[in-house]
């Protein structure tokens, strides 16, 4: 009783509604803070809380139809199964993954690059079906190069970085698929126009020391291009990637319009 006498009257009047769970968030926070500072008051809540907790039992019970329980348990069963599968992949899958990491990566890379290319084509070249077919054949050949150049990279290290056009070429977009620890990567780009004779796109990897040429890029009639970027050092050590328009054969440093520039 003595602890009751000490209780802040503002808190005391909130307690019945606290136990009925009918306070605003702010009011509830006040009571929680008070209880944390005055644990001796918790005992006074007991009677109110037990009465509030009994209220649902005073409602007329309504027996649910059997189908509701069956539906719930079926949902639970599927969830159980899914959880088990997530937690424990079959042993033969683990063994396979351990024995053939390079092969896994090759398959994953092919799948990722195919997905990227198909997405770009579907969104931008919906009406040019024949051109799409040609592009896919060309890119399929390039994918074989990818497998040859990146056979040892572990799957888990691969990241995909979005590339965006500058104001000079806002419709340009693409992706760089790379292992930051590797010295090479795959770049897929679209939205680049065909250049006049004597000009070429040149890809640059940029670090604190400035831009370093990563290769010349050729685009097809649909403005698409795919390049195996070779950096000479870890891709992850660069801060940005850019593409500029240069004279045929490329330049030691960017001299023309920068059409793509994205942080890595």
């Amino acid at each position, binding site marked *: 009783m003595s602890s009751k006498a000490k209780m802040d009257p503002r808190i005391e009047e909130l307690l019945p509604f606290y136990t009925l769970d009918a306070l605003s968030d702010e009011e509830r926070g006040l009571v929680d803070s008070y209880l944390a500072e005055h644990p001796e008051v918790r005992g006074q809540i007991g009677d109110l809380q037990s009465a509030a907790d009994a209220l*649902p039992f005073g*409602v007329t019970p309504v027996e*649910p139809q059997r189908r*509701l329980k069956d539906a719930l348990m079926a949902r639970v069963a599927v969830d159980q199964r899914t959880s088990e599968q997530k937690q424990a992949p079959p042993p033969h899958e683990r063994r396979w993954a351990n024995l053939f990491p390079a092969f896994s990566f090759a398959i994953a890379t092919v799948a990722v690059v195919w997905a990227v290319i198909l997405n770009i084509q579907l969104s931008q070249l919906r009406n040019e079906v024949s051109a799409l077919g040609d592009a896919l054949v060309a890119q399929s050949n390039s994918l074989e190069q990818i497998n040859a150049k990146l056979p040892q990279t572990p799957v888990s290290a691969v990241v995909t970085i979005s590339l965006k056009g500058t104001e000079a070429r806002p419709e340009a977009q693409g992706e760089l698929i790379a292992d930051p620890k590797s010295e090479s990567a795959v770049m897929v780009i679209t939205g680049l126009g065909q250049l006049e004779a004597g000009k070429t796109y040149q890809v640059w990897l940029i670090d604190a020391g400035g831009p370093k040429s990563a290769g010349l890029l050729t685009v097809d009639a649909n403005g698409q291009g795919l390049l195996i970027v070779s950096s000479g050092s870890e891709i992850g050590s660069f801060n940005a990637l850019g593409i500029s328009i240069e004279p045929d054969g490329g330049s030691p440093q960017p001299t023309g319009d920068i059409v793509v520039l994205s942080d890595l």
Partner: protein
Amino acid sequence: MTQNKDATDALMRINSERKLLRSSKNKSAEPLNDETLAARVARGDGAALEALYDRYASTVLGVALKVIGDQGVAEDVLQETFWRVWRSASTFQPQRGSFTSWLFRIVRNLAIDAYRRSNVRPQAKTGTDDSESVLDQTPDPDADVAEQAQAILKNRQVRKALASLPQVQKQVIELAYFYGMTRQEIAEATGEALGTIHTRARLGLLKLREELERDEFEG
């Protein structure tokens, strides 16, 4: 097809677990308490969830129906309530309150949210007479007879205790608990001073507790 097969397999496993649970229950003649079952649910035991469902589904549906007043929406709330028990049992902390307190908070909040979203209930009732509620006492063939009897006894005890309260106290408690109304909203709705609402809530709860104790109610 694979998913259906998986579900069938898992259901068969649950049935098997259920039999074990019942068998152990019969041997000990002492049903597992709510907190033990909740801990099992947290470990992914579907049979434990089913035991809790058998124990409380009719009360949960009764509460949802009382708040919402629409059978279909109330059934959705029932399903969602036990789905949340399944997915969130690991967040239940017995030291902070009973399992039923946690369970009924879930159903109450879901029901009040559903009501506010759909506005299916015409108006919050101001009485506490449940005689107009849908009453379907059809027994579930799988339900434990002792648990059913216990639920009916509890229902009678609480209704009797509520009947002993002055109507104005009962009204404040019901508006706050079942309809999620704040004390200010109750004061406004009833035209009473805020202080009066405080007093009615406190006295009503204390009187309810006293009556339940006298009747040896076990929550």
